[in-house]
């Protein structure tokens, strides 16, 4: 059991190692010749206009919020599905109630236009 998780840890270290190795390798052999014009942000060969740090649509935040809520719902479905064979009909009814309550929420958001983009 420990060995299984150990391989995952080794895998993470291997991944980080590969990235660091290639970064180092390319740092050693690539040319390095920066000047201000080259280091400007890309904006279709024009001088960059204004700040790139702008306020963006609040919609993104709403979607993130809805995502968190339904992610929690999804995470409840996994154990339910795994033990479903032993829990049976009773669990199905419980889960239908759970899903219906949340689906009502989705429907509410839908009707109120929170899922609309423009």
């Amino acid at each position, binding site marked *: 059991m420990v060995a299984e998780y150990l391989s995952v840890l080794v895998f993470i270290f291997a991944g980080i190692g590969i990235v660091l190795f290639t970064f180092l390798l390319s740092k050693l052999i690539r040319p390095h010749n920066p000047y201000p014009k080259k280091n400007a942000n890309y904006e279709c060969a024009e001088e960059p206009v204004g700040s790139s740090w*702008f306020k963006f649509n609040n919609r993104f935040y709403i979607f993130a919020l809805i995502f968190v809520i339904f992610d*929690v719902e999804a995470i409840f479905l996994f154990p339910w599905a795994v*033990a479903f064979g032993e829990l049976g009909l009773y669990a199905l009814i419980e889960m239908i109630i759970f899903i219906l309550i949340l689906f009502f*929420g989705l429907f509410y958001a839908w009707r109120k236009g*929170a899922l609309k983009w423009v």
Partner: protein
Amino acid sequence: MNLDFIIFIVSALLAVSGATLMITLKNPVLAVMSMIVSLVAQAVLYIQLSALFLGAVLIIVYSGAIMVLFLFVIMLLNLRGTEDLGEPSSPIKLSIKFIFGLILFVETVFIIKTGFMPGTVEVGVMAEAANGFGSVKEVSKLLFTKYLYPFELTSVLLLAAIVGAVVMSKRDDDSEDENKIEDNKEVQS
């Protein structure tokens, strides 16, 4: 020195230092990243206690969803770590905070030492956990029989959160109507 112990120490250190960095770093995005490191390390600790499902939930929900929400808020408010955070606290306030922190620490040590918590768990029980304790199936059986009502109430709680999100989005729409043309220019991302 067995392997379990080493993994425990490393992830505990990561969890604590991640949490500390989250408080002390000025750059908000780096603070979020260190909190993710802390959460993942905590997930490793859960897995070591054979609470596999809790570990997975910690990663999927906390570091995979809630932290994304935090990042969105940071980008939405356009925080860059250069904002004026106001005057630093006065020494008196700082010392009061320190004393409260100390009290909390002593309490925690006291609780652990006196074994107030029933069945204090040893490190590295992962291999020996009996009867699938902590496995997804066992958690599920408890969740859908003994703790059924809390589970169903969770859905009501989540519903409230959806309503909150929707109401918030409505308010934004109303205030944005006046300068819509301006917004459209900036906001088309």
